[in-house]
Structure formats: C-alpha cells, structure tokens
C-alpha cells in the first residue's frame, strides 16, 4: 500500500517520467546492430551557418529512418571547419591566422543556448546527436578546448569523434578527465606520419594513455592502409565506440560503392551482430555518384541491411 509520501512522489514524478520517455530518442537497429550517420555523408547541404543546414540534416535523417548521428563541427559552427586548423595545408593560407582567431572568438563567446537550441531541434524530431565530430589540433587554446567540451555536452553528445593526432591526444588528457567525456580517435590511412591514427599501433598508443580515449574505426580508411578491420575489432571491441562504414580499395585505393571495394563490410557487420558488440555503425558516403547524397546514403543503408539479413 502506498503511503501519502509515495503517492505524492508518484504524482509529482509521473509527468516527468512520461516526459522523459517521450524525449528518449529512438535507436535505429538492424538485427540488433545500431546504425547512425556521419553527417559528412551529406555532401549537398547548405553551407556552414545557413539557417537551413540543421533542418536539412534532420530531414535527411528522418528520410533515412536513422535516429542518431555523429555531427561535424562544420555543421554546428557558423564557419567552415577549414578555419579550425585541422588541415595542415590550410594553415599555410595568408588568411588563416585571422580566420582562426575569428573562429576562436566565436567559440569562446557563443552562448551555450546556441548548442541547446540545436539539440532541441534534433530531440523534437525524435533524433539525437550521439557524437560531436571535432578535429582537435594544436591550434586550439586550452580555453577553446574547454568550451568545446561544454558545447558537446550542450548538444547532448556522449562524447567526441575526432580526426586528431597522438600529440594532441596527450594534450586532451586533462580535458577528458575534467569533463568526464570520451574522445574516440578516428583514423585515416597516412602510414608515414607516426603522429597520425592509421595503424593498430597508433590506436593502441592512445588507448594506453587514458581510459577515456576510445576509437572511431573507419573501416574503409583502415583497409586502404592495408590493415585488417575484422582482427582489430575482435581485439579492441571494448574500446570502439563506433565504426565508419565505407568501402575503399586496399593500397590507398579510392572509395567505391558499398560492395565494390576491398573493405570487409559484411564480415564486420556480422561480427558486431553475432558477438553483440556495443559498437555503433555509422554510414559514411564518400564515393562518387551523379545522384544526390540522400539517395546514395539510402543505398548504403540498404547494403548494410542486406548484409545483416
């Protein structure tokens, strides 16, 4: 029998519980495997800062029937991500120092309501930003790193996916600890620069630095670097947050439509399904096509569904 106090708690708590249930974003699964999209896949979006950018991403996710995404900073911040210093080549532009400073000023001064408003737009549509894709690099100041972690939390992200380098990962240690938020390192396939994430060894070095360092394994780039994605996932599944699903040829070969490259997409998806690894599978469309992105991402998703059928 309920006491008056229990009844009171129930009456007060019920609306909040109902609200929480309604707000809990859906999760898209296929045969138990969670799917999402890396928003880089949408190549024909309005430019950074355009008011239609976020609504278009939301519309695309709804059209795909996929509830979560890893969103690029260039899709959140009102300036192109080239202004944030990740690409070393872009730092050589004479305009870069001024543009970089403008980006920093914006980050340090923008209200967190800016990010909360974007989160609300996703949640109102029954979607969620699971990961914030920020490419941390040496041009960040500490204050900027702090604000970026706060921004990720305001967006509702659980952590970051980051194309970064080992030297920057070492700088991030106090920030992941202070904000209690993980960073998942994303790989490319530059095998000559030991600071880049491209090989099992480079990931293992970062994983040993902090328990809050994880992996976003891009299985296409990993294959292009002649690594074995299946073996890596078997060995490190407990530290992999998500994979980027794309198909590339080996030997630094190009991106290809799913099923036409050398990437073991089917094997990887089935490995995750059969072992119930809690690894999210995020579609990343980057091969060439005359069709618009949404149509191609649908094709990519169908390939994955067929692989798991």
């Amino acid at each position, binding site marked *: 029998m309920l006491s008056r106090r229990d009844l009171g708690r129930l009456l007060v708590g019920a609306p909040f519980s109902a609200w929480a249930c309604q707000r809990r974003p859906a999760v898209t699964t296929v045969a138990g495997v969670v799917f999402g999209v890396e928003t880089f896949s949408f190549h024909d979006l309005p430019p950074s800062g355009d008011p239609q950018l976020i609504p278009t991403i939301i519309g695309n996710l709804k059209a795909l029937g996929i509830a979560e995404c890893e969103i690029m900073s260039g899709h959140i911040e009102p300036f*192109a991500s080239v202004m944030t210093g990740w690409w070393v080549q872009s730092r050589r532009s004479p305009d870069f120092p001024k543009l970089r400073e403008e980006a920093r000023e914006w980050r340090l001064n923008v209200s967190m309501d800016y990010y909360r408003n974007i989160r609300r737009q996703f949640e109102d549509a029954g979607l969620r930003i699971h990961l914030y894709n920020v490419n941390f690099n040496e041009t960040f100041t500490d204050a900027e790193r702090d604000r970026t972690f706060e921004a990720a939390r305001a967006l509702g992200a659980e952590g970051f996916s980051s194309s970064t380098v080992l030297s920057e990962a070492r700088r991030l240690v106090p920030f992941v600890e202070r904000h209690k938020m993980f960073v998942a390192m994303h790989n490319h396939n530059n095998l000559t620069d030991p600071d880049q994430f491209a090989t099992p060894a480079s990931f293992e070095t970062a994983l040993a630095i902090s328990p809050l360092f994880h992996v976003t394994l891009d299985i296409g780039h990993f294959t292009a670097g002649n690594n074995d994605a299946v073996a890596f996932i078997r060995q490190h599944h407990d530290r992999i947050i998500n994979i980027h699903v794309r198909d590339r040829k080996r030997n630094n070969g190009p991106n290809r439509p799913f099923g036409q490259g050398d990437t073991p997409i089917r094997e990887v998806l089935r490995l995750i399904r059969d072992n119930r690894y809690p690894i999210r599978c995020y579609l990343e469309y980057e091969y060439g096509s005359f069709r618009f992105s949404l149509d191609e991402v649908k094709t990519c998703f169908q390939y994955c569904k067929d692989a798991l059928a």
Partner: protein
Amino acid sequence: MLPILQGRAGLASRTLGASSWTIVLVAVVCLAAGLLRAAPSQDRDAGGHRAPTVALERGRTIFVLNHCHFCHGEDLTRATMGAANLSVSPLVGGDVDGNAIGAIVRAGLPNLQTAMPSYAELTASEIVDLARYIHYLRQQARHRALATAASAPAGDAALGQRYFAANCRSCHSAAKALTGIARNKYDSATLRTRILRPGPAAPADGVAVSAGQAAHLRLLENYTMENVQDLVAYLSGIR
C-alpha cells in the same frame, strides 16, 4: 468622428489589401524560387554542371565517379579538406593532356595528412579525358576570377612588353598583330576581354578549336592579374 474612422478604416482596408497582395506575390515568388531550387536541373546533377562536349563529359564522369569534386570542388575553386586548389596549382598549369596530372592521380598522395587515394586503375585514355576536363574547369575558373575582379592593379607597360615577347610573339608578330591592335584602337576593357579569351566562352561539339585559341586557353590558365594588366597597359600604349 465617424467619417474619420471610416476614412481610417478605408485606408486601413486599402493598405491591408495592398499588403495582402504583396504577401501573396512574395509567397508566389518564394514558392517558385523554392521549386526552381528543388527541381532537378537539366544541365546539372550531384557532380555539378554537365560539360559542353561529349569528350569533356567523359572527363567529368571520371572526375565525379572518382569523387574528385568532394575535395577539389566541382568547379575547382572550392577545395576542402586541405586539398590543393587546382584552379591555381602550378602543376596543373604546366600539364598537357595529363602528363603531370596523371602521375599524381595514379600514385595518389599517401603521405598527405589525410592521404589522397591512388587511382591506379585509370587507363591512359581516361587520364587524358580527366586532365582535359580539369583544364576546362580551370579555364572557366581563371576567366571568372580575372574578368570579374573587383579591383585590379595598374599595369606596367614595360612588364607587359616583356610578357608579350616571352609568351605571345611566337604567334603575334609585332609588325602584324600590333599594327592591327593599333588600327582597331581597342579600349582597355575590350583589350582585356580579348586577351583573356578571344574565342568562344565554351567549346562545342563539331566546332574545332583553332591552334591560336588553344594557345590562348593555355595562357588563360596561367595568367596572373598582373600579367593581364601589364599586357593591357602595353598594348593600349601602341597607337
């Protein structure tokens, strides 16, 4: 009071009527603009605008299906992800039918920060088609940049003469071409237009490109704004 009120009401009514029409008109225009934007265009797709000739469209197909446009931009000017701006790259400027571009495309740039992929499977003829399409895009991009520049530096006639001697004299003999220019007395704007691109704005199937036009297109790919202004200054001074 009543007439005043009526008058005001009437004015309000007329104003409202005009506003309503304005709103309807704006809505129709916006809708039409939206439809135009959303509707698939006949001359463009996700890879950009269709090429003006069959041969160039072959090149565009290779360019798009190998996702070159994702990094280098569909018109070469909007390079992203640290990729080279091919509209001003000296390597592309010096290339002829893929003799420089082909080596990079085939081998890729594995040491680049995010590694440009290798397209080793492209055949020799595909490389030629791809390179010619890249040159076409570059010519269009350079023409846009040079013809529409908001401010141009004043030209130096002496430097223009030097440029002319080094790059133009093999075709334009001083005696013939320069007296022609003097006779026609082109103004600076016309001279500029003719220096940049004396031929048609784009090639067309069935229309041969003369050797002279081809030479001008090669120059167009490599002109700086200063080169053009110097040439204008030099040629304007010949009277």
